[in-house]
């Protein structure tokens, strides 16, 4: 599938960085929803250098490992990256196991015991066909798929086996040029935590992968995005200068989704982009009922994916921090929480670390002390209005 990337503005620095990392490592790429992860992957697919063979696969809707393997295979076939005829090893395995059956039979229960074997053979076949190249399999929404295996389809063992099998593949075939990007809006650490706490999983299946985070855009890219959206939506801007664009970017912390949303709202209201309309629109989104600003997922992801106690403390911490514009000493946060409930310092540290890892908070370290504040000022304002 060829993607049109004329709308994927900026992110060149990020693409370059990921390609550099991929030379040696597979990647876990995390960020909040709507940060542009999928666009980034599509940009890699559309602009990759010749020595890289990328494959983009989105897997949120897969309900079992065998379906995942089947779709991976189908996708490789559709992209012309693998053919049964040319792929000797895979073909041999295929003949022995499900000989004579159509490949779609892999969906049937009879294929269930064979999915791991099939996955290995597919990778072997792929490496054989694409000899000398680095194959990058970009799996979008991978953590959500695993989370659903565990929580919805009760396939805990299968989830663990898939994680482990993929690790084994990276280790066995990594030298021959196979790389993965696991990408997702919920951190894969959330899934592993679930497995560790509720299912006694003790492995460290991702410690060979490079952890990368997709953050807001750099200001240059953000401005490019604004210019692009203004042009394609044919919206007027007044005054038409860099300051107005700068103001828009800053007012939404250069978050691409909010840049797009603000411009959409201004467009729908048939207004023009000006310092005043930007200010009004940002304010309106922060104050609006009905999740117009789509901020709710920042609270929902805590209630959905965090353990109950951890979630409660996280909410209290964020409620309080939303009233602070500047960095706050970790000790001060502990004192605030300790004033409300009996709590260990270690627990507070753990919560803050998690919120930092999960991109809610920004952190700085000064003379060995940790200080925290909201990562995005836009989110802080919304949080303060609603919970602060």
């Amino acid at each position, binding site marked *: 599938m060829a993607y049109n990337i004329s709308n994927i503005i900026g992110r060149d620095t990020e693409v370059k960085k990921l390609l550099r990392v991929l030379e040696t490592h597979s990647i876990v790429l995390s960020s909040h929803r709507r940060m542009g992860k999928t666009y980034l992957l599509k940009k890699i697919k559309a602009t990759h250098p010749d020595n890289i063979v990328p494959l983009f696969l989105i897997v*949120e809707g*897969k*309900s079992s490992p065998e379906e995942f393997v089947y779709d991976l295979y189908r996708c490789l076939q559709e992209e012309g990256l693998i053919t049964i005829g040319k792929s000797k090893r895979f073909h041999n395995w295929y003949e022995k196991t499900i000989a004579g059956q159509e490949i779609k039979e892999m969906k049937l229960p009879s294929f269930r015991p064979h999915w791991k074997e099939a996955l290995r053979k597919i990778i072997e076949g792929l490496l054989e066909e694409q000899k000398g190249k680095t194959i990058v399999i970009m799996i979008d929404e991978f953590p*959500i798929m695993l989370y659903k295996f565990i929580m919805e389809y009760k396939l805990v063992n299968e989830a663990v086996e898939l994680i482990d099998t993929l690790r084994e593949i990276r280790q066995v075939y990594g030298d021959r040029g196979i790389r993965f990007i696991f990408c997702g809006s919920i951190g894969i650490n959330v899934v592993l935590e679930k497995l560790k706490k509720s299912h006694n999983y003790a492995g460290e299946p991702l410690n060979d992968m490079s952890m990368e985070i997709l953050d807001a855009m750099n200001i240059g890219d953000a401005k490019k995005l604004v210019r692009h959206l203004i042009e394609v939506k044919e919206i007027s801007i007044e005054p038409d200068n860099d300051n107005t664009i700068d103001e828009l970017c800053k007012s939404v912390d250069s978050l691409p989704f909010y840049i797009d949303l603000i411009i959409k709202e201004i467009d729908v209201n048939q207004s023009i982009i000006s310092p005043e309309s930007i200010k009004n629109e940002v304010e309106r989104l922060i104050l609006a009922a009905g*999740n*117009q600003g789509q901020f709710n997922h920042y609270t*929902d992801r805590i209630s*959905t994916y965090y353990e109950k106690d951890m979630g409660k403390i996280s909410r209290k911490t964020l409620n309080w921090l939303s009233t602070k514009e500047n960095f706050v000493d970790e000790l001060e946060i502990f004192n605030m929480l300790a004033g409300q409930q009996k709590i260990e310092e270690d627990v507070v540290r753990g919560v803050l670390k998690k919120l930092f890892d999960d991109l809610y908070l920004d952190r700085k370290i000064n003379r060995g002390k940790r200080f925290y504040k909201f990562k995005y000022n836009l989110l802080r304002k919304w949080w303060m209005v609603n919970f602060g």
Partner: protein
Amino acid sequence: MLIFNSKIEKPGYLEKLLVGRKKTVNALEKSVITGAKYYQNIQHLVIGNRGSGKTHLMRVLFNRISTNATVTNKYCIAYMAEQEIGVDSFYALIISILEAVIRWNDDLAEKKEWKSKIGVLKEIRPADREDRAKEYILSYLGEKQLLILADNINGIFEGMKLHGQARFRDFIQQTDKINIIATNRSLFADIQREDKPFHNYFHIIHLDPLTRDETKELIIKLTAIEASPELTAHLNTNKGIGQIRSIHFLSEGNHRLIAMFFEFLKADIKSNLTIPFLKTLDRLKPYYESFIQHLPPQQQKIIHFLALKHQPQLGSAIAKECFLTPGGTSKQMTELRNKGFVDAHRIGRDNKYELSGPMMRYCIQLTDGRNGIIGMFVRFITVLFSDAEIINRYLKLKCQLKEGCDEKHDYKKQAEEVLIYEKAGENQAPIGHLRKHIESIEDEGTKSAMVKIMMKLRNLHPNCPIAEKDCTCSQLLNTNTDDDPVLKIFIIKLVSCSLYEDAYKLVHYINSNIEGRSEENVTTSIFFIKCLFKFNTNPEIIEGYLNKLLLMPTDGLTKKLISVLLESRFKGNEQTVYNLPKDERAILTFICEKGELL
């Protein structure tokens, strides 16, 4: 009947009747065109209540874009107009999409070919259908993109369940070819919950109810289509204007209800609105019942209870009266809110709930006895009939409170005159224009005094020197108006407009003119208080005045409303407003909007 069906009505009519939604359709159309030009993804979800014109809007959008070559060269349009029943999987959705594309395709050969392909899908094994259907749709699209226009998308999402939604989302992301413009009655869990595939996927556009002016515009357009000169003339009379306002109030700016009211109004323009109202209720009853019938029994019970209770109810009261557990009630209320049946207002840790639309409540109450409905309706009409009626009522109230007043006095003319000033003031008409009106009044007395005042203020507005303003306004404020309450209000209004920032003078004036005057009626006093709000004076002073107001003689409803206002605005307890039923809240808002009463 002109309660049109958007799906079969002529495009021209639909465009003409697109009141209050033009901006939204234009924006959506622009989004599609720019999407076609610049490969922009389109993901809009339009949210609006039942009867708020969603289908109408989609049909107009479809009519426009399906005849625009820029769009059709880039998109295949699948217009799924409320006919997508039975979509229970992603595969079924693809079939519906294919059928929708074919339905609106004029190429008969192509239609035949794709119908036969859908036929093939029926013959192959279930396990293979989805993949084959995806192949078909992608081959049908070729280089084009797919634009899905879907009404009530929640039905489709519910049918597909989580698994189908996730597969649909995967398909969208994987192919980069699918665009959606959808509508729904309310926001729903499948787009709101973090763990759902379409969480925050859509750009949400809320449809607001029609404003009073838009309601008028719609009724006038409906009248024009009907080509009824008698009705057109009637709508320009005081009674007609009052009826339009009442229709707006009762329908809460809902297109469908306005159209229904209009039908009955045109049938009998000479009657008051009671008969059209009851006929509308009769007609709406099965319509609302059809929605309620499909709800689980517990939710039906809650709706019935809320309808008969009239006032918003606490969740705990609903649980008790409907024999439900608190947890169960909370779940049911959330579902009813998501379905758009119920509004909630947070009161402390609990919520107060009421039915979203008053018309549904009236329809349910209709079963329990028409008398109550008529009584309620008469009260609406009394309050909302027309500007002149309101002012008449206000003047009567003043007069009754004044000793020795002649109750048989005809206030109509006086009321109309006040109305002229009000309208001029609202529109910020030039003073000269206002003067023309005033000079046309023959009588002396109040009117001539008003003319003089207008002349004095003519030079003050808007940028005259402060000293001059001070001097003129002081003179005006010192005018003896003890015997002429209308003149008094008039002066204060003008002065407060001219000297908006001069709080001190106004407070001083109120102190010296209101305190201890037993003949001051409540509406005059409220007006002073409103001036006080504007000047943002010490809250204690304001509260003091309001407390005095409560001691003054006035009618029951007004007193009740003032009391609520006092509680809500000055004791920082805005929730007390929700002790009032929705219709009385609307009256309160309406009164607040009317300068002469508040």
